[in-house]
Protein backbone atom coordinates (compact mmCIF):
# COMPACT_ATOMS: atom_id res chain seq x y z
CA UNK A 1 0.00 0.00 0.00
CA UNK A 2 1.34 3.44 -0.84
CA UNK A 3 1.89 5.28 2.40
CA UNK A 4 1.35 8.97 2.12
CA UNK A 5 3.25 11.27 4.45
CA UNK A 6 0.86 12.74 6.99
CA UNK A 7 1.46 16.26 5.77
CA UNK A 8 -1.33 18.56 6.77
CA UNK A 9 -2.36 21.15 4.23
CA UNK A 10 -1.37 24.58 5.51
CA UNK A 11 -3.83 26.83 7.31
CA UNK A 12 -7.16 26.15 8.81
CA UNK A 13 -7.54 22.40 8.87
CA UNK A 14 -5.87 21.16 12.02
CA UNK A 15 -8.51 19.64 14.20
CA UNK A 16 -10.93 19.70 11.25
CA UNK A 17 -8.95 16.91 9.63
CA UNK A 18 -10.62 14.48 12.03
CA UNK A 19 -14.01 15.52 10.74
CA UNK A 20 -13.56 13.32 7.68
CA UNK A 21 -14.00 10.29 9.89
CA UNK A 22 -17.72 11.03 10.00
CA UNK A 23 -17.82 9.49 6.54
CA UNK A 24 -15.87 6.42 7.57
CA UNK A 25 -17.81 5.78 10.76
CA UNK A 26 -20.92 3.96 9.45
CA UNK A 27 -18.88 1.46 7.41
CA UNK A 28 -16.46 1.07 10.29
CA UNK A 29 -19.17 0.36 12.85
CA UNK A 30 -20.94 -2.29 10.77
CA UNK A 31 -17.64 -3.94 9.87
CA UNK A 32 -16.43 -4.05 13.45
CA UNK A 33 -19.75 -5.10 14.96
CA UNK A 34 -20.59 -7.92 12.56
CA UNK A 35 -17.21 -9.15 11.31
CA UNK A 36 -14.27 -8.10 13.50
CA UNK A 37 -15.87 -8.62 16.90
CA UNK A 38 -17.34 -12.00 15.93
CA UNK A 39 -13.88 -13.09 14.77
CA UNK A 40 -12.44 -12.09 18.15
CA UNK A 41 -15.37 -13.73 19.90
CA UNK A 42 -14.51 -16.96 18.06
CA UNK A 43 -10.99 -16.79 19.45
CA UNK A 44 -12.43 -16.25 22.93
CA UNK A 45 -14.90 -19.14 22.62
CA UNK A 46 -12.08 -21.41 21.49
CA UNK A 47 -10.71 -21.33 25.03
CA UNK A 48 -13.83 -22.93 26.51
CA UNK A 49 -15.53 -26.25 26.47
CA UNK A 50 -19.11 -25.28 25.77
CA UNK A 51 -22.14 -27.16 24.45
CA UNK A 52 -23.99 -23.98 23.47
CA UNK A 53 -26.58 -24.34 26.23
CA UNK A 54 -25.14 -24.75 29.71
CA UNK A 55 -22.31 -22.76 31.26
CA UNK A 56 -18.98 -23.14 29.50
CA UNK A 57 -15.85 -24.39 31.18
CA UNK A 58 -12.47 -22.73 30.71
CA UNK A 59 -10.00 -25.15 29.15
CA UNK A 60 -7.26 -22.79 27.95
CA UNK A 61 -5.58 -24.21 24.89
CA UNK A 62 -7.15 -27.62 25.43
CA UNK A 63 -9.24 -27.42 22.27
CA UNK A 64 -6.15 -26.71 20.20
CA UNK A 65 -4.46 -29.70 21.74
CA UNK A 66 -7.45 -31.79 20.74
CA UNK A 67 -7.15 -30.61 17.14
CA UNK A 68 -3.56 -31.83 17.07
CA UNK A 69 -4.51 -35.20 18.56
CA UNK A 70 -7.89 -36.01 17.05
CA UNK A 71 -7.49 -37.96 13.84
CA UNK A 72 -10.72 -36.69 12.26
CA UNK A 73 -9.75 -33.06 12.85
CA UNK A 74 -6.25 -33.61 11.56
CA UNK A 75 -7.66 -35.45 8.59
CA UNK A 76 -9.84 -32.45 7.71
CA UNK A 77 -6.83 -30.15 7.59
CA UNK A 78 -4.95 -32.70 5.50
CA UNK A 79 -7.89 -32.97 3.07
CA UNK A 80 -7.99 -29.19 2.72
CA UNK A 81 -4.32 -29.21 1.78
CA UNK A 82 -4.95 -31.96 -0.79
CA UNK A 83 -7.71 -29.80 -2.23
CA UNK A 84 -5.17 -26.99 -2.66
CA UNK A 85 -3.49 -29.14 -5.32
CA UNK A 86 -6.71 -29.35 -7.32
CA UNK A 87 -8.06 -25.88 -6.60
CA UNK A 88 -4.76 -24.07 -6.98
CA UNK A 89 -1.86 -25.93 -8.59
CA UNK A 90 -3.76 -27.55 -11.45
CA UNK A 91 -5.73 -24.43 -12.49
CA UNK A 92 -2.59 -22.30 -12.35
CA UNK A 93 -0.60 -24.82 -14.39
CA UNK A 94 -3.40 -25.04 -16.96
CA UNK A 95 -3.73 -21.26 -17.07
CA UNK A 96 0.00 -20.79 -17.57
CA UNK A 97 0.13 -23.42 -20.31
CA UNK A 98 -2.71 -21.76 -22.20
CA UNK A 99 -1.15 -18.36 -21.73
CA UNK A 100 2.13 -19.67 -23.06
CA UNK A 101 0.40 -20.87 -26.18
CA UNK A 102 -1.65 -17.75 -26.75
CA UNK A 103 0.46 -14.93 -25.32
CA UNK A 104 1.94 -13.76 -28.56
CA UNK A 105 -1.14 -13.32 -30.67
CA UNK A 106 -3.92 -10.93 -31.07
CA UNK A 107 -6.83 -13.06 -30.01
CA UNK A 108 -9.95 -12.56 -32.09
CA UNK A 109 -13.09 -14.12 -30.67
CA UNK A 110 -11.76 -14.06 -27.10
CA UNK A 111 -14.95 -12.38 -25.91
CA UNK A 112 -16.99 -15.57 -26.14
CA UNK A 113 -14.26 -17.60 -24.47
CA UNK A 114 -13.90 -15.03 -21.72
CA UNK A 115 -17.62 -15.23 -21.03
CA UNK A 116 -17.53 -19.01 -20.77
CA UNK A 117 -14.39 -19.20 -18.67
CA UNK A 118 -15.69 -16.70 -16.14
CA UNK A 119 -19.10 -18.37 -15.96
CA UNK A 120 -18.21 -20.80 -13.13
CA UNK A 121 -17.10 -17.77 -11.09
CA UNK A 122 -20.49 -16.13 -10.92
CA UNK A 123 -22.93 -18.96 -10.28
CA UNK A 124 -23.55 -20.19 -6.71
CA UNK A 125 -21.09 -22.88 -5.62
CA UNK A 126 -24.05 -24.80 -4.23
CA UNK A 127 -25.49 -25.03 -7.74
CA UNK A 128 -22.06 -26.11 -9.00
CA UNK A 129 -21.97 -28.79 -6.33
CA UNK A 130 -25.45 -30.07 -7.15
CA UNK A 131 -24.55 -30.16 -10.83
CA UNK A 132 -21.42 -32.22 -10.23
CA UNK A 133 -23.20 -34.50 -7.82
CA UNK A 134 -25.44 -35.38 -10.74
CA UNK A 135 -22.51 -35.74 -13.17
CA UNK A 136 -20.67 -38.06 -10.77
CA UNK A 137 -23.76 -40.15 -9.96
CA UNK A 138 -24.47 -43.72 -11.01
CA UNK A 139 -26.31 -42.58 -14.12
CA UNK A 140 -24.30 -39.39 -14.51
CA UNK A 141 -22.31 -38.13 -17.41
CA UNK A 142 -18.95 -39.35 -16.12
CA UNK A 143 -20.06 -42.97 -15.97
CA UNK A 144 -21.92 -42.59 -19.25
CA UNK A 145 -18.70 -41.43 -20.90
CA UNK A 146 -16.73 -44.38 -19.54
CA UNK A 147 -19.42 -46.81 -20.71
CA UNK A 148 -19.41 -45.29 -24.16
CA UNK A 149 -15.73 -46.03 -24.60
CA UNK A 150 -16.16 -49.51 -23.21
CA UNK A 151 -14.61 -48.94 -19.79
CA UNK A 152 -17.56 -50.28 -17.86
CA UNK A 153 -15.24 -51.64 -15.20
CA UNK A 154 -14.18 -48.13 -14.19
CA UNK A 155 -17.67 -46.83 -13.53
CA UNK A 156 -18.70 -46.26 -9.94
CA UNK A 157 -20.50 -43.81 -7.69
CA UNK A 158 -17.51 -41.49 -7.66
CA UNK A 159 -18.48 -39.40 -4.66
CA UNK A 160 -19.16 -42.49 -2.58
CA UNK A 161 -15.90 -44.20 -3.47
CA UNK A 162 -13.27 -44.25 -0.73
CA UNK A 163 -10.35 -43.74 -3.08
CA UNK A 164 -11.92 -41.45 -5.64
CA UNK A 165 -14.13 -39.08 -3.62
CA UNK A 166 -11.52 -36.51 -2.60
CA UNK A 167 -10.07 -36.34 -6.11
CA UNK A 168 -13.59 -36.04 -7.54
CA UNK A 169 -14.34 -33.10 -5.24
CA UNK A 170 -10.97 -31.58 -6.08
CA UNK A 171 -11.71 -31.72 -9.78
CA UNK A 172 -14.86 -29.68 -9.21
CA UNK A 173 -12.56 -26.98 -7.88
CA UNK A 174 -10.35 -27.35 -10.91
CA UNK A 175 -13.41 -26.85 -13.09
CA UNK A 176 -14.45 -23.72 -11.19
CA UNK A 177 -11.08 -22.00 -10.98
CA UNK A 178 -9.16 -22.85 -14.16
CA UNK A 179 -10.98 -20.27 -16.25
CA UNK A 180 -10.31 -17.52 -13.73
CA UNK A 181 -6.59 -18.27 -13.67
CA UNK A 182 -6.44 -18.34 -17.44
CA UNK A 183 -8.25 -15.02 -17.77
CA UNK A 184 -6.06 -13.40 -15.13
CA UNK A 185 -2.90 -14.48 -16.93
CA UNK A 186 -4.16 -13.61 -20.39
CA UNK A 187 -5.17 -10.14 -19.28
CA UNK A 188 -1.83 -9.72 -17.53
CA UNK A 189 0.09 -10.69 -20.60
CA UNK A 190 -1.50 -7.85 -22.56
CA UNK A 191 0.89 -5.50 -20.81
CA UNK A 192 3.83 -7.21 -22.49
CA UNK A 193 5.32 -5.24 -25.34
CA UNK A 194 4.85 -7.42 -28.49
CA UNK A 195 8.30 -6.42 -29.72
CA UNK A 196 9.77 -8.44 -26.85
CA UNK A 197 8.32 -11.57 -28.40
CA UNK A 198 9.65 -10.62 -31.77
CA UNK A 199 13.08 -10.07 -30.31
CA UNK A 200 12.97 -13.41 -28.54
CA UNK A 201 12.03 -15.17 -31.77
CA UNK A 202 14.78 -13.44 -33.69
CA UNK A 203 17.22 -14.60 -31.04
CA UNK A 204 16.09 -18.11 -31.85
CA UNK A 205 14.09 -18.74 -28.68
CA UNK A 206 11.57 -21.58 -28.89
CA UNK A 207 8.10 -21.38 -27.37
CA UNK A 208 9.25 -22.74 -24.01
CA UNK A 209 12.24 -20.47 -23.74
CA UNK A 210 10.13 -17.52 -24.77
CA UNK A 211 7.54 -18.36 -22.13
CA UNK A 212 10.11 -18.61 -19.38
CA UNK A 213 12.07 -15.49 -20.24
CA UNK A 214 9.39 -13.14 -21.59
CA UNK A 215 5.89 -14.13 -20.48
CA UNK A 216 6.44 -15.50 -17.00
CA UNK A 217 8.38 -12.56 -15.51
CA UNK A 218 5.52 -10.23 -16.49
CA UNK A 219 2.95 -12.34 -14.70
CA UNK A 220 4.40 -12.18 -11.20
CA UNK A 221 1.55 -10.07 -9.80
CA UNK A 222 -1.14 -12.14 -11.49
CA UNK A 223 0.47 -15.33 -10.27
CA UNK A 224 0.42 -14.13 -6.68
CA UNK A 225 -3.23 -13.15 -7.01
CA UNK A 226 -4.20 -16.46 -8.59
CA UNK A 227 -2.40 -18.38 -5.85
CA UNK A 228 -4.08 -16.35 -3.12
CA UNK A 229 -7.60 -16.59 -4.52
CA UNK A 230 -7.43 -20.30 -5.35
CA UNK A 231 -5.77 -21.32 -2.09
CA UNK A 232 -8.36 -19.48 -0.04
CA UNK A 233 -11.07 -21.14 -2.14
CA UNK A 234 -9.55 -24.55 -1.40
CA UNK A 235 -9.24 -24.02 2.34
CA UNK A 236 -12.71 -22.51 2.72
CA UNK A 237 -14.45 -24.99 0.43
CA UNK A 238 -17.53 -25.56 2.58
CA UNK A 239 -20.22 -25.09 -0.08
CA UNK A 240 -18.97 -27.61 -2.64
CA UNK A 241 -18.11 -30.29 -0.09
CA UNK A 242 -21.37 -29.88 1.82
CA UNK A 243 -23.58 -30.54 -1.20
CA UNK A 244 -21.44 -33.13 -3.00
CA UNK A 245 -20.27 -35.51 -0.27
CA UNK A 246 -20.99 -33.89 3.10
CA UNK A 247 -17.55 -35.14 4.10
CA UNK A 248 -18.08 -38.77 3.22
CA UNK A 249 -17.56 -41.57 2.59
CA UNK A 250 -16.25 -41.97 6.13
CA UNK A 251 -14.09 -38.91 6.66
CA UNK A 252 -12.51 -39.05 3.20
CA UNK A 253 -13.60 -35.58 2.12
CA UNK A 254 -14.13 -33.83 5.46
CA UNK A 255 -12.78 -30.27 5.46
CA UNK A 256 -12.37 -27.85 8.39
CA UNK A 257 -15.34 -25.69 7.40
CA UNK A 258 -17.63 -28.69 7.44
CA UNK A 259 -16.43 -29.72 10.89
CA UNK A 260 -16.83 -26.21 12.26
CA UNK A 261 -20.47 -26.37 11.20
CA UNK A 262 -21.02 -29.90 12.41
CA UNK A 263 -19.23 -29.57 15.76
CA UNK A 264 -20.94 -26.31 16.67
CA UNK A 265 -24.46 -27.00 15.49
CA UNK A 266 -25.03 -30.73 15.68
CA UNK A 267 -22.49 -32.10 18.14
CA UNK A 268 -22.61 -29.35 20.71
CA UNK A 269 -18.85 -28.81 20.79
CA UNK A 270 -18.86 -25.07 20.29
CA UNK A 271 -15.43 -24.43 21.78
CA UNK A 272 -13.75 -27.04 19.65
CA UNK A 273 -15.52 -25.70 16.54
CA UNK A 274 -14.30 -22.20 17.40
CA UNK A 275 -10.73 -23.45 17.83
CA UNK A 276 -10.86 -25.16 14.45
CA UNK A 277 -12.25 -21.96 12.90
CA UNK A 278 -9.34 -20.03 14.39
CA UNK A 279 -6.85 -22.55 13.01
CA UNK A 280 -8.48 -22.25 9.59
CA UNK A 281 -8.45 -18.44 9.76
CA UNK A 282 -4.77 -18.40 10.78
CA UNK A 283 -3.87 -20.88 8.05
CA UNK A 284 -5.51 -18.65 5.44
CA UNK A 285 -3.90 -15.52 6.86
CA UNK A 286 -0.46 -17.15 6.93
CA UNK A 287 -0.72 -18.36 3.35
CA UNK A 288 -2.00 -15.03 2.03
CA UNK A 289 0.77 -13.22 3.90
CA UNK A 290 3.43 -15.64 2.68
CA UNK A 291 2.37 -15.42 -0.96
CA UNK A 292 2.32 -11.63 -0.88
CA UNK A 293 5.66 -11.46 0.90
CA UNK A 294 7.32 -13.78 -1.61
CA UNK A 295 5.87 -12.08 -4.65
CA UNK A 296 7.03 -8.72 -3.38
CA UNK A 297 10.57 -9.53 -2.35
CA UNK A 298 11.25 -11.13 -5.69
CA UNK A 299 10.44 -8.02 -7.68
Amino acid at each position, binding site marked *: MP*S*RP*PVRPPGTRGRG*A*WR*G*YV*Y*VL*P*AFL*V*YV*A*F*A*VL*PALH*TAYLSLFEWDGVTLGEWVGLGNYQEILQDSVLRRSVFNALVLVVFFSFVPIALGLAMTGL*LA*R*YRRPGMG*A*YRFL*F*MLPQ*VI*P*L*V*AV*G*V*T*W*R*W*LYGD*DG*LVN*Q*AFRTVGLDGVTRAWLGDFDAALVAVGLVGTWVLS*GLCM*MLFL*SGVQKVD*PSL*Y*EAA*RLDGAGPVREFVSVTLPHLRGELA*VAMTVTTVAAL*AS*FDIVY*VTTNGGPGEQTTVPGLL*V*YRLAFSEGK*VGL*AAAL*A*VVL*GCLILAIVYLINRLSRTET
Partner: protein
Amino acid sequence: MTGAMTTATRSERWSGYGLLTIMAIAVVIPFLSVFLASVQPAGTPVVGLTWPERWSWDNYQQAWSVAGFSDLIRHSLIIAVGVVPACLVLAALAGYALGTMRLPGGNAVAAFFIAGLTIPVELIVVPLYFDLRGLGLTNSYLGVILVEIALFMPFSVFWMRTHFQSTPQSLVEAARIDGASSATILLRVLLPLARPSLMTLGLLVFMWSWNQFLLVLVLIQDTTRHTAPAGLGFFVGQNTTDIPTLAAGTIIVMLPILILFVVFQRSFIAGLLQGAMKG
Protein backbone atom coordinates in the same frame (compact mmCIF):
# COMPACT_ATOMS: atom_id res chain seq x y z
CA MET B 1 2.37 -7.76 -34.38
CA THR B 2 2.59 -8.83 -38.01
CA GLY B 3 6.27 -9.52 -37.53
CA ALA B 4 5.53 -11.87 -34.71
CA MET B 5 2.92 -13.54 -36.82
CA THR B 6 5.32 -14.41 -39.56
CA THR B 7 8.01 -15.71 -37.25
CA ALA B 8 5.59 -17.72 -35.15
CA THR B 9 4.45 -21.08 -36.32
CA ARG B 10 0.83 -21.48 -37.29
CA SER B 11 0.53 -24.78 -35.51
CA GLU B 12 1.14 -23.12 -32.13
CA ARG B 13 -1.66 -20.71 -32.78
CA TRP B 14 -4.10 -23.40 -33.78
CA SER B 15 -3.17 -25.74 -30.98
CA GLY B 16 -3.82 -22.82 -28.62
CA TYR B 17 -7.27 -22.24 -30.04
CA GLY B 18 -7.95 -25.95 -30.14
CA LEU B 19 -7.19 -26.30 -26.44
CA LEU B 20 -9.24 -23.21 -25.64
CA THR B 21 -12.20 -24.76 -27.40
CA ILE B 22 -11.79 -28.06 -25.57
CA MET B 23 -11.72 -26.21 -22.25
CA ALA B 24 -14.74 -24.13 -23.24
CA ILE B 25 -16.63 -27.33 -24.02
CA ALA B 26 -15.57 -28.72 -20.65
CA VAL B 27 -17.12 -25.66 -19.02
CA VAL B 28 -20.36 -25.92 -20.96
CA ILE B 29 -21.05 -29.65 -20.72
CA PRO B 30 -22.04 -29.75 -17.03
CA PHE B 31 -24.53 -26.95 -17.63
CA LEU B 32 -25.86 -28.74 -20.68
CA SER B 33 -26.23 -31.97 -18.74
CA VAL B 34 -28.28 -30.28 -16.01
CA PHE B 35 -30.35 -28.39 -18.52
CA LEU B 36 -31.20 -31.51 -20.53
CA ALA B 37 -32.06 -33.37 -17.33
CA SER B 38 -34.40 -30.54 -16.37
CA VAL B 39 -36.51 -30.83 -19.51
CA GLN B 40 -37.02 -34.60 -19.38
CA PRO B 41 -40.61 -35.64 -18.77
CA ALA B 42 -41.10 -36.35 -15.08
CA GLY B 43 -40.67 -39.97 -14.09
CA THR B 44 -38.35 -40.93 -16.92
CA PRO B 45 -35.02 -42.37 -15.83
CA VAL B 46 -32.35 -39.86 -16.82
CA VAL B 47 -28.84 -40.79 -17.89
CA GLY B 48 -25.91 -38.43 -18.35
CA LEU B 49 -26.30 -36.39 -21.47
CA THR B 50 -29.55 -37.52 -23.05
CA TRP B 51 -31.55 -35.58 -25.59
CA PRO B 52 -35.14 -35.62 -24.30
CA GLU B 53 -37.64 -37.48 -26.45
CA ARG B 54 -40.22 -34.93 -25.52
CA TRP B 55 -39.39 -31.49 -24.12
CA SER B 56 -41.21 -30.91 -20.90
CA TRP B 57 -41.22 -27.73 -18.87
CA ASP B 58 -43.36 -29.31 -16.16
CA ASN B 59 -40.33 -29.78 -13.93
CA TYR B 60 -39.92 -26.02 -13.74
CA GLN B 61 -43.56 -25.69 -12.80
CA GLN B 62 -43.02 -28.40 -10.19
CA ALA B 63 -39.85 -26.85 -8.75
CA TRP B 64 -41.26 -23.31 -8.82
CA SER B 65 -44.52 -23.92 -6.99
CA VAL B 66 -44.51 -27.33 -5.31
CA ALA B 67 -40.87 -27.49 -4.25
CA GLY B 68 -41.06 -23.85 -3.21
CA PHE B 69 -38.32 -22.33 -5.31
CA SER B 70 -40.42 -19.21 -5.89
CA ASP B 71 -40.25 -18.48 -2.16
CA LEU B 72 -36.52 -19.18 -2.07
CA ILE B 73 -35.90 -16.73 -4.90
CA ARG B 74 -38.03 -14.11 -3.17
CA HIS B 75 -36.09 -14.48 0.09
CA SER B 76 -32.77 -14.17 -1.72
CA LEU B 77 -34.00 -11.01 -3.42
CA ILE B 78 -35.13 -9.50 -0.11
CA ILE B 79 -31.64 -9.99 1.29
CA ALA B 80 -29.87 -8.71 -1.82
CA VAL B 81 -32.10 -5.62 -1.91
CA GLY B 82 -31.09 -4.91 1.66
CA VAL B 83 -27.40 -5.58 1.18
CA VAL B 84 -26.52 -3.94 -2.14
CA PRO B 85 -27.68 -0.33 -1.56
CA ALA B 86 -26.31 -0.29 1.98
CA CYS B 87 -22.93 -1.57 0.80
CA LEU B 88 -22.76 1.04 -1.95
CA VAL B 89 -23.66 3.94 0.34
CA LEU B 90 -21.36 2.94 3.20
CA ALA B 91 -18.48 2.11 0.87
CA ALA B 92 -18.87 5.34 -1.12
CA LEU B 93 -18.80 7.43 2.06
CA ALA B 94 -15.84 5.63 3.61
CA GLY B 95 -13.96 5.34 0.31
CA TYR B 96 -14.44 9.05 -0.30
CA ALA B 97 -12.93 10.04 3.01
CA LEU B 98 -10.12 7.49 2.91
CA GLY B 99 -9.33 8.17 -0.72
CA THR B 100 -9.43 11.95 -1.00
CA MET B 101 -8.95 13.42 2.48
CA ARG B 102 -5.77 13.42 4.47
CA LEU B 103 -7.15 11.81 7.58
CA PRO B 104 -4.81 11.38 10.53
CA GLY B 105 -4.20 7.64 10.65
CA GLY B 106 -6.20 7.20 7.46
CA ASN B 107 -3.83 4.63 6.02
CA ALA B 108 -3.99 2.52 9.14
CA VAL B 109 -7.78 2.56 9.01
CA ALA B 110 -7.71 1.58 5.35
CA ALA B 111 -5.32 -1.27 6.18
CA PHE B 112 -7.70 -2.36 8.95
CA PHE B 113 -10.48 -2.65 6.39
CA ILE B 114 -8.27 -4.46 3.86
CA ALA B 115 -7.18 -6.98 6.50
CA GLY B 116 -10.81 -8.13 6.55
CA LEU B 117 -10.50 -9.44 3.00
CA THR B 118 -9.10 -12.65 4.42
CA ILE B 119 -11.91 -13.31 6.93
CA PRO B 120 -13.67 -16.53 5.90
CA VAL B 121 -17.30 -17.01 6.94
CA GLU B 122 -16.18 -20.06 8.91
CA LEU B 123 -14.23 -17.82 11.27
CA ILE B 124 -17.19 -15.71 12.37
CA VAL B 125 -20.24 -17.86 11.97
CA VAL B 126 -20.20 -19.72 15.30
CA PRO B 127 -20.39 -16.79 17.73
CA LEU B 128 -22.62 -14.90 15.30
CA TYR B 129 -25.28 -17.52 15.72
CA PHE B 130 -25.30 -17.25 19.50
CA ASP B 131 -24.91 -13.45 19.58
CA LEU B 132 -27.63 -12.80 17.02
CA ARG B 133 -29.94 -15.30 18.63
CA GLY B 134 -29.67 -13.26 21.80
CA LEU B 135 -30.75 -10.19 19.83
CA GLY B 136 -33.59 -12.03 18.11
CA LEU B 137 -31.81 -11.73 14.77
CA THR B 138 -31.63 -15.40 13.84
CA ASN B 139 -34.25 -16.67 11.42
CA SER B 140 -34.43 -13.05 10.33
CA TYR B 141 -33.38 -11.48 7.07
CA LEU B 142 -32.09 -8.41 8.89
CA GLY B 143 -29.48 -10.51 10.68
CA VAL B 144 -28.18 -11.98 7.44
CA ILE B 145 -28.24 -8.57 5.77
CA LEU B 146 -26.17 -6.94 8.51
CA VAL B 147 -23.56 -9.67 8.52
CA GLU B 148 -23.29 -9.72 4.74
CA ILE B 149 -22.79 -5.95 4.67
CA ALA B 150 -19.99 -6.37 7.20
CA LEU B 151 -18.43 -9.24 5.25
CA PHE B 152 -18.43 -7.32 1.97
CA MET B 153 -17.30 -4.04 3.56
CA PRO B 154 -13.53 -4.67 3.26
CA PHE B 155 -13.71 -5.19 -0.48
CA SER B 156 -16.31 -2.46 -1.01
CA VAL B 157 -14.41 0.21 0.91
CA PHE B 158 -11.20 -0.82 -0.76
CA TRP B 159 -12.82 -0.69 -4.20
CA MET B 160 -14.33 2.77 -3.71
CA ARG B 161 -11.19 4.14 -2.07
CA THR B 162 -9.16 3.01 -5.07
CA HIS B 163 -11.70 4.66 -7.33
CA PHE B 164 -11.63 8.00 -5.50
CA GLN B 165 -7.85 7.98 -5.32
CA SER B 166 -7.74 7.79 -9.09
CA THR B 167 -10.04 10.78 -9.66
CA PRO B 168 -8.06 13.95 -10.23
CA GLN B 169 -7.40 15.83 -7.01
CA SER B 170 -7.80 19.10 -8.93
CA LEU B 171 -11.55 18.52 -9.22
CA VAL B 172 -11.87 18.41 -5.46
CA GLU B 173 -9.58 21.40 -4.98
CA ALA B 174 -11.50 23.47 -7.52
CA ALA B 175 -14.82 22.73 -5.85
CA ARG B 176 -13.37 23.52 -2.46
CA ILE B 177 -12.13 26.90 -3.64
CA ASP B 178 -15.65 27.58 -4.88
CA GLY B 179 -16.72 27.07 -1.29
CA ALA B 180 -18.35 23.67 -1.64
CA SER B 181 -18.60 21.62 1.54
CA SER B 182 -17.17 18.13 1.63
CA ALA B 183 -20.67 16.65 1.36
CA THR B 184 -21.44 18.77 -1.70
CA ILE B 185 -18.17 17.75 -3.32
CA LEU B 186 -19.07 14.09 -2.89
CA LEU B 187 -22.68 14.40 -4.04
CA ARG B 188 -22.31 16.87 -6.88
CA VAL B 189 -18.81 16.34 -8.19
CA LEU B 190 -17.52 12.89 -7.37
CA LEU B 191 -20.53 10.57 -7.26
CA PRO B 192 -21.71 11.29 -10.82
CA LEU B 193 -18.23 10.30 -11.98
CA ALA B 194 -18.26 7.18 -9.81
CA ARG B 195 -21.25 5.56 -11.48
CA PRO B 196 -19.31 2.88 -13.41
CA SER B 197 -17.35 1.89 -10.29
CA LEU B 198 -20.50 1.80 -8.18
CA MET B 199 -22.26 -0.23 -10.83
CA THR B 200 -19.51 -2.87 -10.92
CA LEU B 201 -19.37 -2.98 -7.14
CA GLY B 202 -23.15 -3.35 -6.98
CA LEU B 203 -23.04 -6.31 -9.34
CA LEU B 204 -20.27 -8.04 -7.40
CA VAL B 205 -22.00 -7.49 -4.07
CA PHE B 206 -25.28 -8.76 -5.47
CA MET B 207 -23.51 -11.88 -6.72
CA TRP B 208 -21.80 -12.56 -3.38
CA SER B 209 -25.03 -12.01 -1.53
CA TRP B 210 -26.96 -14.28 -3.90
CA ASN B 211 -24.37 -17.05 -3.64
CA GLN B 212 -23.89 -16.93 0.13
CA PHE B 213 -24.55 -20.33 1.65
CA LEU B 214 -22.93 -21.18 4.98
CA LEU B 215 -24.02 -17.97 6.67
CA VAL B 216 -27.66 -18.49 5.71
CA LEU B 217 -27.53 -22.16 6.62
CA VAL B 218 -26.50 -21.20 10.15
CA LEU B 219 -28.44 -18.00 10.75
CA ILE B 220 -31.71 -19.13 9.17
CA GLN B 221 -32.52 -22.57 10.49
CA ASP B 222 -36.20 -22.24 9.63
CA THR B 223 -36.26 -23.94 6.23
CA THR B 224 -39.37 -22.05 5.13
CA ARG B 225 -37.27 -18.88 5.21
CA HIS B 226 -34.24 -20.22 3.35
CA THR B 227 -32.60 -18.40 0.46
CA ALA B 228 -32.08 -19.92 -2.98
CA PRO B 229 -28.69 -21.62 -2.42
CA ALA B 230 -29.60 -22.77 1.10
CA GLY B 231 -32.90 -24.13 -0.15
CA LEU B 232 -31.21 -25.91 -3.01
CA GLY B 233 -28.63 -27.43 -0.67
CA PHE B 234 -31.41 -28.59 1.63
CA PHE B 235 -33.51 -29.89 -1.27
CA VAL B 236 -30.61 -32.07 -2.48
CA GLY B 237 -30.45 -33.78 0.87
CA GLN B 238 -34.18 -34.54 0.75
CA ASN B 239 -34.72 -35.52 -2.89
CA THR B 240 -31.83 -37.43 -4.33
CA THR B 241 -33.91 -39.41 -6.80
CA ASP B 242 -36.12 -36.81 -8.47
CA ILE B 243 -33.38 -35.67 -10.86
CA PRO B 244 -35.54 -33.65 -13.29
CA THR B 245 -37.09 -31.47 -10.56
CA LEU B 246 -33.72 -31.07 -8.85
CA ALA B 247 -32.15 -30.05 -12.16
CA ALA B 248 -34.93 -27.55 -12.79
CA GLY B 249 -34.43 -26.12 -9.31
CA THR B 250 -30.70 -25.81 -9.93
CA ILE B 251 -31.34 -23.90 -13.14
CA ILE B 252 -33.83 -21.62 -11.38
CA VAL B 253 -31.26 -20.78 -8.69
CA MET B 254 -28.60 -20.01 -11.29
CA LEU B 255 -30.83 -18.08 -13.65
CA PRO B 256 -30.99 -14.62 -12.01
CA ILE B 257 -27.23 -14.32 -11.67
CA LEU B 258 -26.80 -15.82 -15.14
CA ILE B 259 -29.06 -13.17 -16.67
CA LEU B 260 -27.16 -10.40 -14.92
CA PHE B 261 -23.89 -11.90 -16.12
CA VAL B 262 -25.09 -12.02 -19.72
CA VAL B 263 -26.36 -8.43 -19.64
CA PHE B 264 -23.45 -6.89 -17.72
CA GLN B 265 -20.63 -9.23 -18.67
CA ARG B 266 -18.17 -6.41 -19.29
CA SER B 267 -18.62 -4.89 -15.82
CA PHE B 268 -18.68 -8.31 -14.22
CA ILE B 269 -15.51 -9.62 -15.81
CA ALA B 270 -13.64 -6.37 -15.32
CA GLY B 271 -14.75 -6.30 -11.70
CA LEU B 272 -13.79 -9.90 -11.01
CA LEU B 273 -10.36 -9.58 -12.61
CA GLN B 274 -9.50 -6.10 -11.34
CA GLY B 275 -11.02 -6.85 -7.97
CA ALA B 276 -8.82 -9.90 -7.66
CA MET B 277 -5.75 -8.00 -8.83
CA LYS B 278 -6.25 -5.05 -6.53
CA GLY B 279 -7.22 -7.19 -3.58
